[in-house]
């Protein structure tokens, strides 16, 4: 090939060369052995206080799991570890068989399919509801793509669909900052759905919601299980009872008991530490 041809090849406008493409963040998620999340022997201390103490937990692919436990049991710290915000002192955490969560930065973990909803709803207040969903939409996160980005019809439909699902169609073009607390919770859940994650970590989704909203959230989360795996941290016991199949009770940084709601409620140790009996 002459040099001119080589140059011509390089100048092709419709070709994206491998070195320009963002490196695939990770090898594909591998859940052939069942669990989507492996947490083994994780310990994390803050100034001598053991927030997580040799915690071991497995979540199956497609499962809906509830985590309960008194304040300081380590629920939020666990979420921080899984999303890369906090690095544990010892232990392992794997997403599927191949992704070592303890080595990846936050944004790569998010790209590889773990979505998180915070305890305090965090939305982009200055952006509209629609823009919040658009930003979360599953797509390349590269600079150039973002600069040239334009929604196509299909993506527009997907956003409309989620808007309807979270009952915010009317507020689509209002800044997210003006929404009520419950609506922000919903918007954050909607953003999670747009990311289309394999594993959703949901921290206190019904705090500040009315009874009716709570019911709807329960319905939504239940419908997500199967296609996605969902881990819910919640204090509201009625809510947990309404959605839970398996419940893990955390106490002083490790799993105290695991089982169905009935089993948990009849467990003597759980009654002692959590239900206060």
């Amino acid at each position, binding site marked *: 090939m002459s040099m001119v041809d080589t140059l011509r090849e390089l100048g092709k406008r419709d070709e994206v060369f491998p070195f320009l493409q963002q490196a695939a963040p990770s090898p594909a998620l591998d859940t052939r052995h069942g669990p989507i999340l492996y947490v083994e022997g994780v310990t994390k201390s803050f100034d001598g206080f053991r927030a997580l103490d040799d915690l071991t937990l497995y979540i199956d692919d497609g499962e809906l799991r509830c985590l309960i436990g008194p304040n300081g049991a380590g629920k939020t710290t666990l979420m921080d570890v899984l*999303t890369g*915000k906090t690095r544990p002192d010892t232990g392992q955490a794997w997403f599927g068989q191949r992704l070592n969560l303890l080595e990846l*930065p*936050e*944004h790569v973990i*998010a*790209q590889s399919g773990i*979505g*998180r909803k*915070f305890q305090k709803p*965090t*939305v*982009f*207040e*200055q*952006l509209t509801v629609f*823009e919040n969903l*658009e*930003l*979360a939409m599953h797509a390349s*996160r590269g*600079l150039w*793509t*973002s*600069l*040239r*980005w*334009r*929604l*196509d019809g299909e*993506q527009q439909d997907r956003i409309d669909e989620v808007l309807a699902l979270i009952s915010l169609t009317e507020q689509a073009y209002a800044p997210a900052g003006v929404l009520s607390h419950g609506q922000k919770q919903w918007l954050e859940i909607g*953003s999670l759905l747009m*990311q289309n994650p394999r594993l959703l970590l949901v921290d206190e989704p019904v705090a500040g919601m009315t009874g009716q909203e709570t019911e709807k959230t329960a319905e939504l989360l239940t419908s997500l299980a199967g296609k996605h795996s969902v881990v819910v941290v919640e204090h509201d016991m009625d809510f947990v009872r309404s959605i839970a199949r398996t419940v893990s009770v955390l106490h002083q940084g490790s799993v105290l008991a695991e089982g169905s709601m009935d089993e948990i409620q009849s467990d003597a140790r759980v009654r002692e530490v959590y239900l206060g009996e």
Partner: protein
Amino acid sequence: MLMRQPFVMRLARLHSGFGWAVVLLLAAFALVVVPLLNQFLTPDSALYIPDWLVTLTGRFLCLALVALALDLIWGYTGILSLGHGAFFALGGYVMGMHLTHNRMEAGTIPNFIQFLGRDDWPWFWVPFQSFWFTAVMVFLVPGALALVFGFFAFRSRVRGVYFAIITQALTFASMLFFYRTETGFGGNTGLTDFRELLGFSVREADTRLVLFMLSAVAVLLSYLLCRYIVTSKLGRVLVAIRDAESRVRFTGYNPLRYKLFVWTVSAMLCGLAGALYVPQTGVINPGEMAPANSIEMAVWVALGGRGTLVGALVGAGTVNGLKTWITAAYPDLWLFVLGGLFIAVTLFLPKGVMGLREQITGRSKQ
């Protein structure tokens, strides 16, 4: 999926029809009306624009370009820089080095280099003989400094007031570096006594008029570039970083890349502004890197209104106009006025001049 769209269409959507009309009117005023009034009217006409006013406005345009660059990083991304004076001055020095070459007879070197005990140009001076090399370096020198500095600062997640303080340190350190005679940039006198650029005398009124028009074009194109960035999805990611950076990370974006991009673009625009400013002012010295200068730049943006781009232009024009008038009429008062202005804006106009209308209508609704 990324949809292909003609660039022209994307450009057209930067503004509403009304917005475009205003932009084009202003551009026509600067590029057609001002030159005509300056060239074809006599000084006794009421509409005559004198040469000194053309040059003054040309310099204001360069400062407005700095304000635009600062708004991109502060107003939209929420990163307050109090060191943009360093990038501005670097662009100025790059141009100053070229102009210094132009003023020397072949084979001679300036005094400040002779005093270092040399009889030839130091290696880092040699390539600036070329105009095109200089034109590229105007962007690359501030851009490279911003890229390296930004990489370490953003990677360590330095934010808010801490970041603002280290940018002050950056501009202060640059100032000390350029003040030293041994570094070969003319010490505290800086570079001055410029004569010509591309064969045109920089002291001639006609050259000054062209420089004014070039500055206007630079502001116009930079404004459109900034507008293109902030109206894209990338711009919405920047606003998202400003409002909730950790949420951005958990959504899968790497804020480091976005911040670094916009920070470097901002520094490059400052470099361009500096390069256009120097031939119109006739001097560049380390005083431009004084920390107070960079703080003043932040006042321009705050006064005009952050996160609006237009506000930055308005703020830079207003403050510099006031400064020119007050430093001539009441020289001792200027710093008090500047300080008072900043306090007043912070207390009464949190959204600047651009937020005024919203503030008034908002209040009347209550």
